[in-house]
């Protein structure tokens, strides 16, 4: 981590930056950000998104499946609740579609990147 003391208009402030395999970490004006590497680089499994497949972003456990096969879903609608590191989070639909298949049930352990629910491909 490199510390920068920046000066502008006679006023100083401190900022930090560091490169990593994911991109550039910066901290300035009280906020930390990760600037991902430019497109074209290999993406991490956790950020790969296929809009008609709901993938596990982390290894964890399925808490609840909120939809059934054949249900219609709207953008942003919760589909699966899962738990990892003792925290729950909700996976939502990114497209308006229908549930084509569900591959997991409550209490199932799932691996990173595993397909949990498949939605019909939009036309």
């Amino acid at each position: 981590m490199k510390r920068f003391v920046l000066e502008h208009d006679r006023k100083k402030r401190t900022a930090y930056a560091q490169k990593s395999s994911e991109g550039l970490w910066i901290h300035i004006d009280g906020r930390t950000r990760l600037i991902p590497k430019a497109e074209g680089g290999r993406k991490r499994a956790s950020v790969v998104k296929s809009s008609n497949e709901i993938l596990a972003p982390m290894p964890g456990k399925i808490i609840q499946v909120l939809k059934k096969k054949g249900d219609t879903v709207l953008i942003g609608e919760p589909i699966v609740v899962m738990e990892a590191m003792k925290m729950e989070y909700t996976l939502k639909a990114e497209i308006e579609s229908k549930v084509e298949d569900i591959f997991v049930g409550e209490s199932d352990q799932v691996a990173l990147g595993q397909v949990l629910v498949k939605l019909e491909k939009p036309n």
Partner: protein
Amino acid sequence: MKKIERLAIANRGEVAVRIILAAQELGIETVLLHSEPDRATRAFRMADLTVCIGGASSSESYLNIDSNINGAKSVGADALHPGFGFLSENSDFSKACEENGILFVGPSPEAIQKMGDKITARSLMENAGVPLVPGYDGEDQKLETLKSEANRIGFPLMIKAAAGGGGRGLKVARTLEEFESQLNSAKREGLSAFGSEKIFLEKYVEHSKHIEFQVFGDKKGNYVHLFERECSVQRRHQKIVEESPSPSLNEELREKMAKSAIEAARSVNYTGAGTVEFLLDGENYYFLEMNTRLQVEHPVTEMVLGVDLVKAQIAVAEGRSLPWIQEDLFPRGHSIECRVYAEDPFQNGIPSTGPVLGLHWATGPGRRFEYGFDVGDKVSSFYDSMIAKVIVHSDTRDACIQKCVKTLNDSVVFGVKTNFEYLKSILNHPKFQDGTMTTSFIQDYFSEGLMDSDLSEEELAFVELAQKNLLSMTGSIHSIESPFEKSWRNV
């Protein structure tokens, strides 16, 4: 009285560091009982001795009674501190310590057991005259009985596993229609997590506050309370921001609740540090549960009272009297703790793992940082995502909030994402600032997490500057050719 010479620590992360610091200041040697991957942690480096007790999975290490006992015995530890979480509230564990001649830094197995069974705890509290949430905790667990009791109590209501805790085995039923399915779900969770499907019912008091009292007892029958903490900011029953004193209590109420808390401790001959949790609804308070261990949020109490709860735990375990009398204890100023979770606040709190690449804690007067990792250590998905705590102390609540925001603004964690922005949004929220937040605060105002914003011009400029600078680290920084060089000079 027995002087502890070598203290085993059956825990990890920031609390292991906290216990090591207290013990070493007392001249006690420390033994960290750790899992295989936890060699790469701050506690491992700080402990005088270390014993690897098993694999990464908690069931093979931190939750395994035999491994912990054998580890402690292998280096002749004469006492053991369980920290919080893991085996800290397991009466079989404290009994096993006792049987193996290891002094357990905590209450007796009986006290842990009685408070651990929430139904037993309720009936003890009833006898001690501590107010209870209206509910049903009978032996008759037939569906018909439970249904009619549910109707009597009224909806919404909570269905809780008798052996539960930490939000597990807890379900809310809003109507009679959903009662049965929620009941079955609570039973299932209770059975899988705690080995018992016994449940009890409690009225669900919405928009209430979470207030808890720190109590302490010694082996001579002395008790004190160390005032309250408010922990109303919770997400799915997990605390995020805690403070002391609570902005919601007047002197009269504080005194009444403190008295109830001490009665609760006395009812099980409690020794050591314990916390009695209450739900506060206007001027009415009800017993929730007693946590028979050190609490994650204990630092806010230490900050306002100028005490060291871990050292007091050790003293009491050794058989000494409490280091304080009630009249000496008087809170000064205000303290807030923020729990730092490794998660992405802009993706609804999805956990973030990986190596910590950079770290800077913005130290200063009245700022305290509890953490269990150094740069290069990994935050892994095997353990809790709470990786650190930021605690501040100031004269008034307003000044304290201000200090807390500034401290978070100036502190840096690179490598894993943290909830810093989430914490600041909470601290800056008017409902938090005026002290009227309830346990539905997060659900009411932050249910969608945070919305990310585009990079500001300043950030974009800095990205450019940093990228060039980091590429040519060997070159003179003043010779950077950047379109921003004229306005920004790296001095």
